[in-house]
């Protein structure tokens, strides 16, 4: 990965004259067109429930991917950060619990929700970065559990077990953003921005330094970097993405309750990121769509074969086990290996690679 684009080294160097879009492969254009025109072919359920939920969970898993893939920090706090943002929207904005909601305008409660959730995620990060590996997982899981129980037991702020209902997006530009098509484009837009931001930052100095910290923190300190500060900053960046995902999640459900950030939901984000492939940003969305499709359609499938619909988690669990067992780097890892095998497949007589330099 060359982070520094090399300046022209020769007079006939052409890269400088290339437009940004020339570097994007055809597959991405096809995917973008398919997503843009999806409302033309998909029904409201697919737009709102399948894709809307996929983009939201994908964003929250993306925040975990950023920390784990680029920073080497597996955090289980991301769903709690998202839920914190959702709660703040309900508390500072409008909900069915008018005694607790403050009814502030959207341009106050939205930034405030993102800010408070980011501060929460950053503070957790400040604690977690002093640990490594399994201890990071354990400390973030412990804080996520504490958050879950706190929201369930606190009635004066979080309304306890019931949480908040009737939390809907503001009607901006005369659009009801909770209608399937507007909500689809809203979540698609946010997910796209989050994805592009992660890809861009991964090659900016901050992202590059983070990858250096992941690979060799001692060396990075010896190059003048404050390793702890960089890790905490990574939590802050990831928290912003998780917070936006949390706001969209509360709007989609029109409610938020402690269960939104329950232990199962916290673990689900890890499962999603691992299934997709934790090393690259797109893996979060691949994992999310697999999870959403299984969660949405598996109960019907199980019922049709005479099993309880409640068992859909069994399918997700088996899928997770299979992925971890056969491809620790997720679906993307399978894809990479398939492409590598295809590239290596060459002439059976000479053994030359199809992509080798001697190939005609």
């Amino acid at each position, binding site marked *: *990965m*060359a*982070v*520094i*684009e*090399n*300046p022209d080294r020769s007079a006939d160097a052409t890269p400088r004259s290339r437009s940004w879009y020339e570097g994007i492969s055809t597959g991405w254009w096809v995917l973008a067109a398919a997503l843009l025109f999806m409302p033309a072919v998909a029904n409201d359920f697919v737009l709102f429930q399948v894709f809307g939920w996929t983009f939201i969970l994908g964003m929250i898993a993306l925040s975990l991917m950023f920390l784990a893939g680029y920073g080497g920090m597996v955090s289980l706090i991301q769903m709690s950060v998202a839920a914190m943002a959702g709660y703040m929207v309900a508390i500072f904005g409008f909900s069915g619990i008018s005694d607790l909601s403050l009814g502030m305008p959207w341009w106050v409660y939205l930034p405030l929700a993102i800010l408070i959730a980011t501060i929460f995620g950053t503070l957790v990060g400040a604690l977690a970065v002093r640990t490594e590996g399994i201890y990071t997982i354990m400390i973030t899981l412990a804080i996520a559990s504490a958050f879950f129980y706190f929201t369930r037991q606190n009635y004066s702020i979080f309304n306890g077990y019931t949480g908040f209902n009737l939390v809907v997006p503001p009607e901006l530009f005369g659009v009801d953003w909770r209608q399937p098509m507007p909500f689809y484009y809203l979540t698609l837009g946010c997910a796209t921005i989050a994805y592009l931001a992660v890809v*861009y*930052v991964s*090659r*900016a*100095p*901050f992202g*590059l*330094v983070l*990858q*250096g910290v992941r*690979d*060799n923190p*001692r*060396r*990075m*300190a*010896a*190059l*003048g*970097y*404050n*390793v702890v500060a*960089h890790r905490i*900053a990574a939590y802050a*960046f990831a928290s912003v993405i998780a917070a936006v995902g949390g706001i969209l999640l509360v709007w989609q459900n029109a409610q938020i309750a402690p269960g939104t950030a329950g232990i199962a939901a916290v673990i689900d984000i890890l499962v999603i990121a691992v299934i997709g492939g934790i090393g690259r940003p797109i893996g979060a969305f691949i994992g999310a769509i697999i999870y959403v499709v299984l969660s949405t359609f598996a109960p019907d499938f199980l019922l049709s074969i005479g099993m309880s619909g409640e068992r859909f988690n069994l399918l997700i669990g088996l899928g997770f086990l299979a992925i971890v067992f056969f491809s620790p780097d997720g679906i993307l890892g399978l894809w990479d290996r398939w492409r590598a095998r295809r590239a290596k497949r060459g002439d059976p007589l000479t053994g030359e690679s199809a992509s080798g330099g001697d190939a005609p």
Partner: protein
Amino acid sequence: MSVIAIPSPTTNLSSVSSGNALELRGVTKLFGALAAISDITMTVRSGERRAVLGSNGAGKTTLFNCVTGDFFPTSGTIRLFGEDVSRFPAYERIRRGLRRTYQISLLFGGLTVSDNVYLACRGVSRGRFSLFRTRASDPVRTRVEELIAAVNLTEATDTLVSELSYGQQRQLEIALALAGAPRLILFDEPAAGLSPTERRELINILTSLPGHIGYVIIEHDMDVALRVAESVTMMHNGRVFKEGTPEEIENDPEVQALYLGHGDE
């Protein structure tokens, strides 16, 4: 021989300054009951080139680790350019002009040569937390190219570090140490594993460093150590055993008996 262009230190590096680059006073590092180094007192003047010699286990690398902040000393003080940095984290010492190379290359194998040098340059400049990609006009990029050229790796600029030869990796280590405005560099066995040709190249690089850059070099190859150093500290069992010029050390009977293996007895 051309002199490697290194920016001179700027006044904001440290407002505190003295004639000495490094002063160690009674530095001891204990690992449990084991004293890796004991009561080390040593002074390195600004611009001085010093070799630290000693057998394996003499405490040379532990001494370096204490100076760079990888370990805090159990007791004693470390002053860098007049400032007490004994409890400073490693990155604070680096920002005061200290650099080091490692005995075992600690490079980023998955990144290119230019990315490695870029990380080193960015580490001692502004924009470490920048979320915006480097522009073509960024002076850091120019500096990266200069440093790569200084250690004769221009042709390998875009090569992954994992694909470099061992000797090239050692050269890259030196490029990383030269990033920013170094004032004192600690070289930990830079010649280890190099071929004779690569050693000559290393000597050329070290001797062509600008005069304001001092260094301390740990080296088992006496030819290299005594050719690039103007003073020598001998260590034995975690203590300073002898100090002197290369000639004095080379001709000292005790040193010869202990280290060079051809004493009179």
